[in-house]
């Protein structure tokens, strides 16, 4: 972790209470997307600051020369350090919108091509077409133009749309033969298939390579394309008058400080977690939104939809019309031991730390990971005693504990397994006790052990599938705890594994089941499986 960021945890004394949301927004990315959002948010009465979306200070040609240096905080109280040339200033924002534009990188290198006067990137060529003089050096009767689009197969329909637009503009030119070299034609954009068909009718030839992509050879200043036509399985060569090469669209690497805020997977440059629960512009951190390329969307219309999405989400937060989150944990400051475990593990960045941990009501999604992980048991859902378990105990444990006797305890995540259970509730026999929890991440080992202690025959924990958790890794934390309880951990002193078996309970009596709201069958099967197993034990 970046040392500056670590420090900022201590320095950021909360200046805003949860009721007072700062009506200002920081927009990261200052090209057209950023500007669209800036205009929209200004109209909403927000004070807007646009900074460059680039991380590289040296070679950016952005409109503003503001660069983001660091960012931390949570909705209503983000604090950014913005650098302007040599100056650096701290500023607070209510909201942050990541709207970095896509990086367009011509794939000359990927194809082994070198940039020479007859070789253009699609954007360069688009400009030539707009100027009206796209075809330099016409020599032969027929002018052959090669368009290289997506030979790697991973391009987006947006690039294909760009090619289509250019090719459509060229149709008026007589005796021009365009060839498109590609892998998969990305027609999955609105209206593209129709335009693609029209271009075929106009004489554009499309080569689609599965493997054995064409090679480019430079022969006395001219590029020659050699390839085996995947259809005829015969060898061809073409010395085009011009070559136009596609650009790979990719998101810009977000500033490190941004990445850290949203627990984005290291492997992807996107700010939105893998989980499909972050729909639209939402990220795992409330008040921080990802737009367009920052979340993997390149289609212009869809990016514009995101602008609406940002407006909508901000209005929701400002109007506090977000559905009641409930079940917000509270810290017992007298027990807090200053260990920062909760701060480190909160997937939503909802916990601040000044002298003791403090949980922001507007950022917290109530997953309860902090409750489960706090070594001092200093955090609990006290403000809503009914609801550590939605159906269940914590504050009236004796009641539910008595119900465990002779039954199978089902600890179910409210977003997945509990919903799945609803549709089978009438089928399942009565020898189960259902304990619904907000997120599987809040289930602690002692809940499981207590269930056994109170006479449960078996414990089944149902959480989301990997990559589906609305709290990013609540399910994984839970699964690890279940594993630990089941198979045990090694006691460093005795070098013996201590788990359920050391208590005389067969570890087969506990299981974590990944489930989704629409997979009641998986849950049903798991219940009958474990029933069968304990019968045999």
């Amino acid at each position, binding site marked *: 972790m970046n040392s500056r960021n670590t420090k900022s945890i201590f320095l950021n004394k909360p200046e805003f209470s949860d009721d007072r949301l700062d009506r200002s927004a920081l927009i990261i990315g200052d090209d057209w997307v950023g500007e669209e959002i800036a205009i929209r948010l200004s109209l909403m009465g927000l004070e807007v600051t646009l900074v460059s979306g680039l991380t590289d200070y040296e070679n950016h040609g952005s409109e503003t020369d503001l660069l983001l240096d660091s960012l931390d905080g949570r909705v209503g109280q983000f604090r950014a350090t913005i650098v302007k040339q040599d100056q650096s200033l701290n500023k607070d924002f209510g909201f942050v919108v990541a709207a970095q534009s896509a990086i367009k990188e011509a794939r000359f290198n990927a194809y082994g091509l070198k940039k020479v006067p007859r070789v253009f990137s699609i954007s360069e060529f688009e400009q030539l077409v707009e100027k009206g003089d796209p075809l330099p050096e016409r020599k032969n009767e027929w002018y052959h133009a090669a368009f290289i689009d997506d030979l790697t*197969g*991973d*391009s987006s*329909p947006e690039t294909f749309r760009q090619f289509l637009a250019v090719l459509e503009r060229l149709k008026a030119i007589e005796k021009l033969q365009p060839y498109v070299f590609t892998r*998969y*034609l990305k*027609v*999955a954009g*609105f*209206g593209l*298939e*129709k335009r693609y*068909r029209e271009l075929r009718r106009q004489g554009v030839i499309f080569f*689609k390579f*599965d493997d054995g992509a064409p090679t480019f050879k430079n022969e006395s200043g001219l590029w020659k394309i050699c390839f085996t036509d995947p259809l005829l*399985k015969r060898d061809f060569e073409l010395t085009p008058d011009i070559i136009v090469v596609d650009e790979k669209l990719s998101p810009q690497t977000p500033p490190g400080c941004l990445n850290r805020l949203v627990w984005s997977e290291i492997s*992807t440059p996107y700010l939105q977690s*893998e*989980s*499909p*629960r972050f*729909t*639209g512009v939402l990220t795992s951190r409330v008040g921080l939104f990802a737009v367009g390329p920052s*979340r993997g*969307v390149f289609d212009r*219309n*869809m990016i*514009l*939809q*995101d602008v*609406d999405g940002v*407006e*909508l989400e901000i*209005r*929701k937060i400002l*109007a506090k*019309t*977000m559905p009641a989150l409930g079940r917000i944990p509270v810290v017992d400051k007298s027990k807090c031991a200053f260990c920062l475990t909760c701060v480190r593990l909160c997937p939503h960045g909802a916990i601040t730390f000044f002298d003791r941990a403090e949980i922001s009501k507007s950022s917290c999604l109530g997953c309860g990971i902090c409750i489960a992980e706090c070594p001092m048991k200093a955090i609990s859902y006290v403000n809503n005693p009914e609801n550590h378990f939605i159906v269940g105990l914590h504050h009236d444990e004796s009641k539910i504990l008595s119900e465990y006797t002779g039954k199978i305890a089902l600890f179910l995540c409210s*977003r*997945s397994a509990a*919903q799945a259970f*609803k*549709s*089978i*509730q*009438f089928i399942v026999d009565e020898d189960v006790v259902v304990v619904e929890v907000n997120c599987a991440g809040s289930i602690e080992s002692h809940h499981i052990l207590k269930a056994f202690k109170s006479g449960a025959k078996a414990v089944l924990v149902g959480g*989301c*599938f*990997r*990559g*589906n958790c609305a709290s990013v890794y609540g399910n994984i934390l839970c699964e690890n705890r279940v594993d630990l309880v089941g198979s045990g951990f090694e006691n460093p002193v005795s070098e013996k594994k201590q788990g359920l078996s050391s208590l005389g309970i067969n570890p087969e009596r506990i299981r974590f089941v*990944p489930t*989704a*709201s*629409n*997979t009641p*069958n*998986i849950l*049903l*099967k798991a219940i009958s499986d474990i029933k069968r197993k304990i019968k045999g034990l």
Partner: protein
Amino acid sequence: MAEAVDSMCEEKIMHKEVAIIGSGIAGLSLAHELSCLGIGSAIIDRQAVAGGQAAGFACKATDSCQRCGACIVHDYVSKVTIDDMIEPLLSCHILDSSRTSAGFELLLNEVPARIDQAKCSGCGICKKVCPSPGAIRINPYTGSFFIEYSECLLARGFSCSVCEQACFDDAISISSESVPKKVEALAIAIATGFEPFDATIKKRFGYGRIPGVITSLDLENLFRSGYFQNMGSENSFSSIAFVQCVGSRDIKIGRNYCSRVCCGYAMRSARLLKFMFPSIKVTMFFMDLQTFDRDFEDRVMAASREVDLIRGIPSEIKLGASGKPEVVYNDNDDEVRVEEFDMVTLSVGMGPTTPHIGGYLGFIGANSGNYGDGSFGNPDPTTTGVFRAGSANGPRTIQESIEHAAHVACEIDRYLCKIKSGVDVE
């Protein structure tokens, strides 16, 4: 007719700012977003249970989530159920609609057989006694029961009240007449989703004729019903083929567009099957593989190791001598092959639901639901006050429908602001 209904239901006129037609994922998320903006809405659906088609889709998770989004529908159903701003008008047919000076007026007909969910204890006696199989069904969200009126004997002109009499909870009301309802709204949102391509039209693929040839929606049902999970180890299920672009990218049937979601759908299903049956042979016939995820490259690379990708559409599916489907295709080495599969899935494309809408909303000019035209995806300029959300506006995934609904919510909000402030929107 309008007068007659007026006199019958004077007290039942419902005033809402927006009438949403369709309770699928787009309709639900639109209602939710509107509610967040303080705009009340009524969701009208013929079905007795909200959720639409997406609610019938299966989870595609292997050992990890594959981001298909089907599980999110449940969230929106529960969000909408508890929201006072939203009035669900389920089991309602639209009889007529008209434009009024204040906006729109919809005449509805609520079917006469209903189960009061608040009273129902889910004992299931109604299902046991019902003489019509399929009339009483289980709600996938709550596990409770509801009446699918189209299957009910009442709908076929018989008189029957067996379930009403049997119900211990007094939750079922069977009346001889349907209940007329009237909704007045300032704007209408069409969220009628899509209609899957009728695979029997492509006769050469043998759907409905050859056992083992199924559509992608059938496959969803098999996943959901636990068909594969219950197959056991002694199964003889060792090969499956996916045929892409059935009912899309096909000018002959007037569908000159890519259905957008099928490549992703098929790839996810293929990977799930591969996960369930590691030795299964999965073959995918396609024309162009469409990007279906932001990490497309990785996913396709991973999939192509597991799936035989064959570029080419089969010419025919025949009934093989062993009673299984045989696919006739030209393989990657240009050899024509006739290969037997245990199962062949036709990835049917999404089509507009125009025929339904044209019937009762024809006056609005909202009948241009043709996906094939170039204006696809753009708001319909001729219909002031009428909006389209989700797949009613072009094929969309579940997440895209939710995003589009958010966008439409904003558009409706802007429209309502304008008409409330007296700006001439024409």
